[in-house]
């Protein structure tokens, strides 16, 4: 059934595309300066989106995307600083409930079903956006808590040389250098980003009032990477983009605060090759993407004589076609085929997995009302996942008010470890699935020539059943994954944005406050989970803010975040904390160049806090950045 269906889908897509291609050939000679009316990137109605501030991204080339999300979005990032791994929790979901798309392609590690955000250097990314809430039908497997979109942008207006050099030196042995160099014209853009970074991360942290601070040991990191981009505009309607991402990271793994020493280290090596071809008609667009990833993770702890290597490959092909129908409708159809191969000592054999997904989206913009409806069906090795719909609506009763809502069914497929970990992996695991609902209100309370102000409030609720947990079955002494848990998440998200421009001054203020209740609906014996208990490492409250003032050439950026109390794996609680960061900079522009110097004070108030149990965080520390680029 799976084969027949997949062939049928492919045929449909081919016909769909071929029909357009014929039309295209007929049209091409007549189109001299086409007006492209279709957005490359799909926009779905009713989603709450946080965009990471571009200046913040620009000012911290030495950091990783996980850190940026923790600073400037309503995402809880589990990390203990330095080069430690960083995973996300959005709207009370697990790390596996965050879909991560790089230029539209999923990046997750299929063995873990999640992504380590510390392996995403900020210098490789031009835009970071968080789309909150479930929308599996549109974004794909695992988009339950939210979707993080990482994009590289092409500026076809940029002529000749593209150049940027950045260097950062900071506390705890941080040294980073990055170079973005390329050549571009209206037809062709070649960009190479390369970075090198090392840090000792030998900060000290608070233990207790009557004890000296403890210095972190065995925490050094060293990494370098390169992202090569080739963008070719074959015709004004047709573009070809290719990317090659290589990165290696060698990080020592420090002992936790209740551990005497550690000699462990982890080596990550990432190779990603991706290409896309895109053709835009007057009222339609087709995009074909292909990608190949190879990632190795080696964990070595000579103290306990452990040397473990896990490897995976991903081969992915995706075609999407979008067509405007009349003036108000738009139809998108997509098909994606993904092949995984994974190998580790934890599996009995090398594992392969095939996934085929087809989806469609209908969007209508009619006067003050927009709505979209998406539907996705996915098969994994012949087994079908739930058919997931998603319906979003936006209504603008007045110019200054927008009401939005979305209802969706979502799922997450079990990761390869849960399926094939030997001997307790369970190939019969079901995908986690459930419904999400959200309702939002946006009020543009200031909309003048120089000033804008927007407040938004979003309420959501999500129920997920068959949540996979590793449990100790009765009579067994080995943990095994099962579809045992059910989780209800509900909350409110407030956002306030003010931006304005006065004489020589640009001011932007962004505030966000999340209230979240994410609870287990039923009790589990082992792990000991009580019905009604909040998920671990899921704060009930989170606040973040950015105040940015550019006065003439001076730059002032103040960031503050608050994270509420969380419970931990060992039945302890970590106290809430407030953390502030301050960046002071000076920008110097010439006709050809733009230089920027900035000093960043992290943890401005020198607070002692912990994000993870038994893991201390650094106090106040500085970093200094120089950035030079061709204008």
């Amino acid at each position, binding site marked *: 059934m799976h084969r027949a269906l997949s062939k049928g889908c492919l045929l449909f897509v081919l016909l769909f595309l071929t029909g357009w291609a014929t039309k295209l050939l007929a049209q091409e000679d007549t189109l001299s300066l086409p007006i492209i009316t279709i957005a490359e990137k799909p926009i779905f109605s009713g989603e709450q989106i946080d965009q990471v501030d571009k200046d913040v991204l620009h000012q911290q080339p030495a950091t990783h995307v996980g850190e940026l999300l923790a600073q400037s979005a309503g995402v809880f990032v589990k990390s203990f600083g330095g080069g430690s791994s960083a995973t996300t929790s959005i709207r009370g979901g697990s790390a596996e409930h965050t879909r991560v798309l790089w230029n539209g392609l999923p990046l997750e590690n299929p063995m873990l079903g999640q992504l380590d955000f510390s392996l995403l250097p900020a210098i490789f990314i031009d835009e970071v956006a968080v789309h909150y809430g479930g929308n599996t039908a549109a974004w794909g497997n695992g988009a339950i808590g939210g979707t993080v979109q990482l994009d590289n942008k092409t500026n076809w207006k940029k002529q000749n040389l593209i150049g940027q050099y950045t260097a950062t030196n900071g506390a705890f042995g941080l040294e980073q250098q990055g170079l973005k160099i390329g050549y571009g014209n209206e037809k062709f853009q070649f960009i190479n980003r390369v970075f090198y970074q090392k840090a000792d991360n030998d900060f000290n942290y608070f233990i207790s009032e009557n004890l000296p601070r403890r210095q972190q040991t065995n925490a050094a990191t060293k990494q370098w990477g390169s992202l090569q981009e080739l963008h070719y505009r074959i015709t004004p309607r047709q573009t070809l983009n290719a990317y090659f991402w290589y990165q290696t990271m060698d990080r020592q793994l420090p002992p936790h605060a209740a*551990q005497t020493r550690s000699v462990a280290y982890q080596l990550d090596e990432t190779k990603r090759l991706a290409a896309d071809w895109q053709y835009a008609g007057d009222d339609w667009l087709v995009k074909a993407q292909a990608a190949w990833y190879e990632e190795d993770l080696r964990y070595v702890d000579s103290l*306990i004589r452990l040397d473990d290597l896990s490897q995976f490959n991903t081969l992915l092909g995706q075609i999407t076609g979008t067509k405007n129908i009349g003036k108000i409708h738009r139809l998108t159809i997509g098909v994606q085929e993904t092949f995984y191969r994974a190998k580790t000592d934890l599996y009995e054999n090398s594992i392969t997995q095939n996934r085929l997904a087809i989806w469609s989206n209908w969007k209508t913009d009619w006067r003050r009302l927009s709505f979209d409806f998406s539907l996705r069906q996915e098969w994994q090795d012949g087994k079908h996942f739930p058919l997931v719909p998603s319906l979003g609506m936006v209504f603008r009763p007045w110019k200054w008010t927008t009401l939005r809502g979305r209802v969706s069914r979502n799922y997450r497929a079990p990761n390869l470890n849960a399926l094939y970990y*030997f001997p307790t992996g369970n190939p019969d695991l079901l995908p986690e699935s459930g419904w999400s609902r959200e309702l939002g209100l946006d009020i543009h309370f200031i909309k003048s020539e120089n000033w804008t102000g927007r407040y938004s409030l979003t309420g959501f609720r999500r129920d997920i059943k068959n949540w996979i947990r590793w449990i100790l079955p009765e009579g067994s002494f080995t943990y095994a994954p099962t579809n045992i848990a059910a989780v209800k998440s509900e909350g409110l998200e407030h956002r306030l944005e003010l931006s304005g421009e006065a004489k020589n001054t640009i001011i932007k203020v962004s505030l966000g406050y999340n209230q979240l209740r994410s609870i287990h609906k039923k009790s589990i014996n082992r792990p000991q989970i009580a019905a009604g208990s909040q998920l671990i490492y899921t704060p009930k409250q989170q606040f973040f803010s950015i105040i940015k003032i550019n006065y003439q050439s001076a730059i002032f950026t103040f960031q503050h975040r608050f994270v509420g109390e969380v419970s931990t*794996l060992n039945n302890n609680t970590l106290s809430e904390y407030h953390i502030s960061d301050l960046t002071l900079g000076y920008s110097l522009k010439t006709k050809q160049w733009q230089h920027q110097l900035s000093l960043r004070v992290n943890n401005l108030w020198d607070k002692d806090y912990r994000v993870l149990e038994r893991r201390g965080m650094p106090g106040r520390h500085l970093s200094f950045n120089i950035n030079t680029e061709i204008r």
Partner: protein
Amino acid sequence: MKKLFTLLLLVIGLGLNAQVYFEDSVLPGAFINDSSPDTGFVFDNLFFPNSFTDCGEDCEFWSGWAISATTDVTTPGFMNQYSSIVGEGADGSHAYAVSYAFSESYVTLDREQTSGMVTLPSIHFTNSTYAYLSMRDGDGVAKKFGGETGNDPDFFLLTINTYLENVLQETIPFYLADYRFEDNSQDYILDEWMEVEFSNPEVDSVTFRLTSSDSGMFGMNTPAYFCADVFGNPLVLSVTNSNLSGLSLVNTLASSELIINSELDKNMDYQIFGISGQALQNGKINQGEQYLSIHNLPVGKYWIRVQHDGLQWTKGFVKQ
């Protein structure tokens, strides 16, 4: 490992000794796990359950008991799960039993047998190297005892329950580590063999449950291992505590006569004990080489003890 187990079966099968002791079953530096197709190991009338799954290189799942003679007291972690922190058995011998007791482990005593051990007066315990070093230094999962400040009132408790015909006889809490003292200098992690005596040796099963102050949602973080030795023979500890010099045992493997050499110009009493602690034979020892007839004893493991003026000398031997 499987070869070693085959060797064990061969030893039993040859009938060299109906009462097989740990040290006779495993070579120094080795260990025995996986009792399949049997559900456990049998030593004398004691049954030690074992469940074992081999999942490839450096990968195994097991519970119950393994028999070990590994001696690594310095390597932390799972790969050194079979060593005792003492580096040897309780009687100074090379072998002992290791239990992985994530839920509970137990031994049973077949009292219906007409020979061999029918009572269980005591057992000796110590920590495994894995658990000891984890409690001392912490690891990727577990905390070092005392915690970040050294003041956490941590403990690693072995709760021993003895039963006779399913009726609970006794519950003994035995702390393998105890950091609950006000004075931190009294905190300890057991690093020697300690004997736990049962007030009533008439038991037919004993259960062992480990609990730790370092526990979370997934249960205990402290590695759930302990080591045990000298099931039922209170004399063995005294082997290492022998304080009467001038005596030596010439043949530790004997068929009909035991040869004792005494340099002491004294007339002393001796006793020969079986595994269950029963005195089976007694007599006198004089100066010079003595030939003690043991032809009435069945084949098996025995101890001879000589006492004089509050001092004692004890040695083990095997009747072939």
